[in-house]
């Protein structure tokens, strides 16, 4: 891409006219520019600045108060426990969606009848709203009517129906995160599958002459070569899981056992009307997302050439 200093260059094939400013490209991009500046860049800058101000609906002149908003956040037990939960959401979600994505991609790389129908079914959870996926999985985890309880009972593995959600942090986060993994794994699979399909077959043929087993071929040839695909899959999983809202909100309500940082941002801002803390929390999640995404990139990504 070159910097556009040659504005007004004559269109090839047309007679050269006198040099004048060519306004058309700016006209074409101006609606996009207005949206990006007005509803993305300016609000993002506002979040950064407002994090360091006292923002109070009842006391409009907002005052600079340094790190007070951040101090308040780290004194709030509900927010601290939501940070622990969110870390667990990220660990469970990124690990599960990546492992499942690799497994599904390896299956779908092969050619068999019905493969394209299977891909159509695979992407279904990606296309559904997170809120409704919450409803769908409440139906599975529920203590009175859930599928899991019913199956365990039918198999005589439990005497009485159990309460799974909301009893302890780890189980609650795990069960809620499975719902989000259900939603984000299709995209991980597609990204890893695309990387898999770039690997030339000759590499495997060379491997089989050496007598490498399937597993050896997988760890020795496949895995190193799909690292770019795995990286992109993991980054999208980091962004989704760090900002998780819909699934815990629907499955567990405001209960502390599953509350995420984004949920706390919503409660603090729109229920307690503490906008300063809301801005500071938004900034913390944003910075955490950028740092962890960059960390994954550094750790997992290796350039691949065939």
């Amino acid at each position, binding site marked *: *891409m070159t*910097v*556009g*200093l040659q504005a007004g260059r004559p*269109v090839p094939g*047309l007679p050269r006219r006198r040099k004048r400013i*060519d306004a058309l*490209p*700016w006209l*074409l*991009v101006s609606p*996009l*520019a207005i949206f990006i500046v007005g*509803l993305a*860049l300016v609000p*993002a800058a506002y979040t950064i600045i*407002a994090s360091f101000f006292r923002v109070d609906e009842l006391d409009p002149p907002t005052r600079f108060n340094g790190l007070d908003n951040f101090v308040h956040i780290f004194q709030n037990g509900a927010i601290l426990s939501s940070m622990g939960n969110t870390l667990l959401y990220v660990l469970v979600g990124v690990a599960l969606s990546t492992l*499942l994505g690799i497994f599904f991609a390896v*299956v*779908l790389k092969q050619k068999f009848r019905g493969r394209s129908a*299977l*891909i159509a*079914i*695979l*992407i*279904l959870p*990606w*296309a*559904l*709203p*997170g*809120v*409704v996926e919450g*409803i*769908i999985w409440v*139906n*599975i985890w*529920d203590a009175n*009517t859930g*599928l899991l309880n*019913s199956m365990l009972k039918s198999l005589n593995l439990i005497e009485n129906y159990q309460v799974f959600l909301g009893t302890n942090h780890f189980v609650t986060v795990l069960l809620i995160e499975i719902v989000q993994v*259900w939603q984000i794994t299709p995209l991980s699979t597609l*990204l890893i599958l*695309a*990387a898999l399909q770039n690997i030339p077959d000759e590499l495997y043929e060379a491997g089989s002459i050496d007598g490498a087993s*399937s597993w050896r071929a997988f760890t020795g040839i496949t895995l190193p070569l799909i690292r770019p695909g795995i990286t*992109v899959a993991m980054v*999208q999983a980091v962004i989704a899981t760090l*900002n998780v*809202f*819909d699934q815990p*909100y*629907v499955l567990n309500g405001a209960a502390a056992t599953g509350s995420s940082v*984004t949920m706390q*941002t*919503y409660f603090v801002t729109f229920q307690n009307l503490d906008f300063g803390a*809301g801005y500071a929390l938004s900034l913390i*999640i*944003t910075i955490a997302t*950028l740092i962890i995404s960059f960390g994954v990139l550094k750790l997992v990504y290796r350039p691949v050439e065939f």
Partner: protein
Amino acid sequence: MDRRMHWVRWIGVAFILLWTLIPIYWTLNTSLQTNAQVTAKPAYYVPPTPTLRNFATLLTGNGDVPDSVRQSLVNIIIECAAATIVTVVISTLAAYAFARMRFRGRQLLFYAVLATMAFPAYTTLIPIYKIMTGLGLVNTYTGIVLVYVSGFLPLATWILYNYMSSLPVSIEEAGQVDGASRMQVLWHLVVPLARPGIISTAIITFLFAWGQFLFPLVLSSDISTEPLTVVIASLQGRHVVPFSLMSAAGIIAIAIPAVIAVLLNRYIVNGLLSGSVK
């Protein structure tokens, strides 16, 4: 392929099918039962006497719950359709300029668009609420659609930029030699050639818009603009709606995106891959 790979494949196919379809089947199963049947222990794994009563209640019945489900279904369709149309038009114009023209500020704006994709959407939640309050657009279709458009434009522009850049320039140059203006070239040559990319962008935008929850939760204050996702979450939160009826509402909410995803999956796969792998 050796024998072991063969087994891995069929176990994998079975696992993908069960993992994806069992949860959806279970909700469908629940939605076709009466509430008395739903509370049986252990549960009925197929509906003993399948009934569409729950769907009839929601779609044609009277009362607070059916009314809000119907109104929010209308809202979500209007909001998603409007957001899709506006996003596709704006991103097509911009992608054409980025792919085929050189102008001052091109690189700066292009990188600004890419940078916004790296940020989580909720970074801007509170300022956007403030802006919409200031403009008097809280609880209006316009406000919700503007926010959706701003959120989806970067990805849409990126997908269409990649698609248009991959088209051969020669056809457009031939058009310009014939004396067509650049807008005529865009409309009569580029748009038809880029049709698959435009369809991908439209479908992905529509599905993203359909899944939105936190933004409309903040930007809608009553049933006049609340999309179906917000209404369903609030019904669930109040614990007054029986499981059978909740499941029917869920099935209604996933019917349109599910049909789109299954029938048009090719466009989705292509769009997502050209939007993510670069």
